């Protein structure tokens, strides 16, 4: 009798081999080889990533993977960052925590993004997971310092507490003081989002001084300058630090104390914060600049000359986040000084003003693309652009993998020729063959989507706004982009035809968001009936879509694939096909 290949190695050996396979994708491939590998793999999978918390249910995850130690969940769609998703839409983590509390007593890492986290969830985490180590709440909301106090009090082995960009209600409890005196395990603490009332300096100093393994510390903007120096002296081993408010007039004693504190920090590689920084204090950090690989100045209202001085001290910079105050001249300096630069993000200092308040144009980006051979990731806000510049950037930087351009005024054309940017973005997708993320802006016709469908074969995420002429645009993208996972569209003339023609494609993607487009409720219902494994959510606060005339288009549409079926926590302004009405929350 022929021996089956799979039984030639014992389970223990296979499990040991699988333990070297960390990547999710590889693990999924391994589990698809045969039934016995599937069984072995599922018992030893320790780390789960769920890109859309409604794509699967916690029960299903637990049933398949009984011994998970680390979970990452994402909730709301990306456009929630820009207030396009009404409050109350969903993304609640409590059902997940409740199920995992029973099933995964050894869970030690929870990472959440854009989810609603309540104090009840945090308290449940604190009491359910005995060896809890990592809590990352990125862009989350719904909890207060009460919940944080529960975590601080109970999680004896907590290593990482990161609240990046979350919204935390101040319940006035001194939560930091809830870390017991015996607690010494903190490695990474990010509380930069907290308001001024929520951090006690003395508790913070005591905490920092008793945690010798602290590597990353990101404080909030309320910590004054003299406290900053104290804290740095308590933690000279820091690798990442977020500094805070700088006082108005330069005081030489404060300055020298600060400069001295920074000069002790030989391991420091990443700096951020810099709210309200006064340029006169910047030289205090010069001693660490030569080793800095990451600098986030996107909160700093300092102008080009001071920015130029600063970046010229940072030859090892790999990542820079900055406001448009850097101007073209600053970016030219960056291009000549920082040859290791991999990521650049330039944000608008005054996004809502029609007039530019800084001399930042397409020239700055062209300079960086020419001067920085390792540049891979770009996020750039500007007020003018040309196709010629985009073509130059594409030809010089074919290694770009993330390109997000935001020309601030919708429908802005090429300032040199008056043309749409079809050719420019076409060059980007044609030359940058490894492009995985792209955001478009400016005047664009259906042509740009033809280029994207033709060339952007590795593109995973595409963001589109105020672009295109007809359904053909959307059709090009859905039929051409083989690797597309996430598509988010706003204010484009895309409608029923493209959507229904490419219905099957939607099941190969994680999600599609369309707001202020031209999709009818009829089409949504049809799509929903045709594709049972898609959740088609119409988000419309104007009332039942059925009650409006047939040719009325829906306000917002969020379509995502799911094996969990329709969700049970839909608010009244989310409309799905009729059969789901019974599942609606009562108002």
């Amino acid at each position, binding site marked *: 009798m022929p021996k089956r290949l799979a039984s030639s190695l014992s389970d223990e050996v296979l499990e040991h081999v699988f333990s070297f396979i960390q990547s999710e994708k590889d693990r999924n491939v391994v589990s698809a080889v045969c039934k016995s590998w599937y069984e072995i793999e599922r018992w030893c999978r320790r780390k789960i990533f769920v890109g859309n918390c409604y794509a699967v249910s916690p029960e299903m995850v637990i049933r398949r993977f009984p011994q998970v130690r680390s979970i990452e969940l994402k909730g709301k769609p990306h456009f929630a*960052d*820009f*207030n*396009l998703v*009404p*409050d*109350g839409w969903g993304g609640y983590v409590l059902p997940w925590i409740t199920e995992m509390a029973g099933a995964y007593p050894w869970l030690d890492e929870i990472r959440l993004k854009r989810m609603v986290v309540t104090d009840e969830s945090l308290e449940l985490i604190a009491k359910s997971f005995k060896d809890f180590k990592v809590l990352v709440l990125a862009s989350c909301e719904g909890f207060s310092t009460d919940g944080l106090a529960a975590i601080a009090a109970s999680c004896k082995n907590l290593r990482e507490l990161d609240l990046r*960009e979350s919204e935390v209600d101040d319940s006035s409890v001194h939560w930091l003081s809830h870390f017991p005196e015996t607690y010494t395990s903190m490695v990474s603490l990010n509380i930069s989002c907290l308001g001024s009332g929520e951090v006690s300096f003395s508790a913070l100093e005591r905490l920092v001084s008793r945690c010798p393994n602290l590597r990353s510390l990101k404080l909030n903007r309320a910590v004054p300058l003299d406290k900053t120096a104290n804290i740095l002296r308590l933690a000279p081993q820091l690798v990442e630090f977020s500094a805070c408010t700088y006082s108005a007039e330069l005081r030489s004693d404060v300055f020298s104390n600060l400069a001295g504190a920074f000069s002790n920090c030989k391991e420091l590689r990443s700096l951020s914060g810099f709210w309200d920084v006064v340029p006169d204090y910047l030289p205090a950090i010069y001693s660490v600049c030569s080793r800095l690989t990451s600098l986030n100045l996107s909160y700093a209202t300092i102008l080009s000359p001071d920015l130029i001085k600063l970046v010229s001290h940072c030859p090892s910079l790999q990542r820079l986040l900055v406001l448009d*105050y850097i101007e073209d001249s600053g970016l030219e300096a960056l291009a000549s000084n920082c040859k290791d630069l991999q990521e650049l993000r330039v*944000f*608008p*200092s*005054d*996004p*809502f003003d029609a007039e530019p308040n800084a001399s930042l144009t397409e020239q700055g980006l062209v300079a960086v693309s020419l001067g920085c051979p390792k540049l891979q990731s770009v996020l750039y*806000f500007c007020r*003018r652009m040309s196709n010629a510049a985009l073509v130059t950037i594409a030809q010089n930087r074919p290694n770009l993998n993330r390109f997000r351009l*935001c020309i*601030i*005024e*919708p*429908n802005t*054309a090429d*300032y040199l020729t*008056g043309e*749409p940017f079809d050719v420019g973005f076409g060059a980007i997708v044609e030359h940058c063959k490894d492009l995985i993320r792209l955001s478009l802006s400016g*005047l664009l016709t*259906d042509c740009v989507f*033809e280029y994207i469908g*033709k060339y952007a074969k590795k593109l995973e995420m595409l963001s589109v*706004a105020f672009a295109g*002429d007809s359904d*053909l645009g959307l*059709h090009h993208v859905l039929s051409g982009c083989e690797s597309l996972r996430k598509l988010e569209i*706003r*204010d484009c*003339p895309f*409608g*029923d*035809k*493209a959507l*229904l*023609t490419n219905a099957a494609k939607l099941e190969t993607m994680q999600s599609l968001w369309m*707001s*202020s487009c*031209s999709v*009818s409720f*009829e*089409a949504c219902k*049809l799509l929903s009936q045709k594709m049972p494994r898609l959740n088609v959510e119409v988000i419309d*606060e*104007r*009332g039942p879509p059925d009650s409006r005339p*047939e*040719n*009325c*288009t829906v*306000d917002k549409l969020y379509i995502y694939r799911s094996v969990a079926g329709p969700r049970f926590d839909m608010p009244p*302004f989310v409309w799905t096909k009729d059969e789901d009405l019974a599942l609606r929350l009562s*108002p």
Partner: protein
Amino acid sequence: MSSENGKRLLETDAGGLNFEATELTLGLPGEPRVTSDGGAKLGSKRGFSETVDLKLGDNNREVKLGHSLQEAAKSPVSKTQVVGWPPVRGFAKRGKKSCKYVKVAVDGAPYLRKVDLEIYNSYQQLLTSLEDMFSCFTIRNYLNEKKIEQVNGIEYMPTYEDKDGDWMLVGDVPWQMFVESCKRLRLMKSSEAVGLGLTTGPKYSSTN
């Protein structure tokens, strides 16, 4: 792939739905999707010449917006009326010293909104923006006693909770003072507000 082939593909797979009826209508959220009279439809396919009016060779370039966006630009509020554009994250208001996000609740609506009071310069701008957000309702405008065109006959009074926890009528104090002290907003049904004793306080008539 030629555009012709693409178009044909779309039509044959259409599934027999009446696509003429789903003509594109670009508009801002909350706007009625009707055509404006005397001219191009709001948001209909724009010819290139309609959209851009560049003064080539001029350093101080002005780019005129397309029809649909000209409607937005005419409004008295700053460009922020286009929700979520440009796509900068709300919490991290870069380059600004502070931002003042407050929750807005509307009686009878099960959802909340958030607004950043820092982006407005006057009560008028705030109220106009709120009207856009909650376009199903009318907001009683105390500043000049003018009633905005009613949609469903229910009037709402804008009220707010201040630092001391008291509920006040929006418009009673100077704008800056309001921005500093406002913790949250509530659009209260007029009938309820009368019952709570929130009568028309001293009318705020001086300029900001």
